[in-house]
């Protein structure tokens, strides 16, 4: 289960605040995954006191609203990433960025599909730069794209281009994963699916033996 409480002193009307919060949740908490299990209790409550004395924001199109949205996104993304970073048994955070899609929602769906893949998560834990699993997870996300446009990078190491594997330094790629695991750092998986304007991100963590151990022993 994830719970969140967000507070601000911005002055914003109810309708605009509720819209903003859902947009930010979609760009953050709804884009993380540890085990693919959606809880019975997931909740985010967001409260705005208005005590900053800022301009009253009553439309999403106001400049102030666009700025407040960016601030809300970054706070929720910071918290959401820390949940994925702290996933049960995790040794590292996995950050998936998908670009070249036709819409933000489509990019986000592909990104979360990759971050949710048990095979991708296990490969990261095994320090295996397994581009095939990443390509497969992108392909079954339910978003259509031309596979000949698929590009996959692990960090800045090019694994796939034009839908086909590229020669790459396996040891260097494996060391990139190993280092992230040793420092509880971040593994970046960058995927491009075409020439569209939109990008989206998702966050997850690797799948370790400890996840099974923790959840085989912890019972309700």
């Amino acid at each position, binding site marked *: 289960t994830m719970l969140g409480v967000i*507070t601000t002193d911005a002055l914003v009307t109810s309708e605009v605040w509720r819209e903003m919060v859902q947009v930010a949740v979609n760009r953050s908490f709804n884009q993380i995954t540890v085990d693919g299990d959606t809880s019975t209790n997931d909740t985010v409550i967001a409260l705005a006191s208005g005590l900053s004395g800022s301009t009253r924001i009553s439309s999403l199109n106001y400049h102030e609203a666009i700025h407040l949205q960016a*601030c809300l996104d970054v706070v929720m993304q910071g*918290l959401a990433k820390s949940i994925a970073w702290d996933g049960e048994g995790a040794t590292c955070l996995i950050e998936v960025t998908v670009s070249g899609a036709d819409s933000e929602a489509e990019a986000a769906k592909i990104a979360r599909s990759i971050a949710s893949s048990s095979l991708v998560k296990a490969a990261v834990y095994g320090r295996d730069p397994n581009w095939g699993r990443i390509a497969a997870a992108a392909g079954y996300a339910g978003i259509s794209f031309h596979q000949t446009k698929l590009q996959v990078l692990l960090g800045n190491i090019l694994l796939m281009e034009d839908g086909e594997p590229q020669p790459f330094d396996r040891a260097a790629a494996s060391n990139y994963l190993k280092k992230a695991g040793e420092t509880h750092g971040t593994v970046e998986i960058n995927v491009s699916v075409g020439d569209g304007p939109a990008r989206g991100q998702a966050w997850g963590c690797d799948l370790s033996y400890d996840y099974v151990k923790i959840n085989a022993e912890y019972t309700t």
Partner: protein
Amino acid sequence: VSVSGSEAFNFIPAAPIFLPQGPWNQIPGGVTAAEGFKAAGMYGGLRAKGEKPDLALVTCDVDATSAGAFTTNVVAAAPVLYCKNILNVSKSARAVLINAGQANAATGDAGYQDVIECSNALAKLLQMKPEEVLIESTGVIGQRIKKGPLLESLPKLVNSLSSSTEGADAAAVAITTTDLVCKSVAIESQVGGRTVRIGGMAKGSGMIHPNMA
């Protein structure tokens, strides 16, 4: 036993939270960074074992514009149903009470009544209306809230409310379950010519694939 922020970190450390560069500054304070908010965290005897804080409270000095996003899992916990009902009839709120240990999910009408009783008791102490109190729970599915220890802890919880960073840190620890770190962050930025602050806390480590609406 109510704890201050520094004591709270005796239980679990704070997560490193990386924010991208942008027109904001990261500041201390989590949920208490913004004007008008207080928080507290304490051990109320709710957890199955150990004495890590397990009861948190966040309040606002004024009616705060409220928003919420909730699991779309149709096996939804009593506090989720309660909060959705409250937000459907009210645009503002002034308190969020959070308990860790029991999820109060799959607990039927009795579980829902427990939520009502806890929000009524807290509203009375805070001299608010019950519909100004929202509730979040996390923990073991199928178990009702340990209502006795929770209700007995409320006066001390209310008395330990603080607008300091310590209050926010204690609350961030109290909402955790299998987490290895607590999660709290705040920023400030210029919005409409004034300094606006946004802060937050979160918990989560297992059963994580949110689809909230």
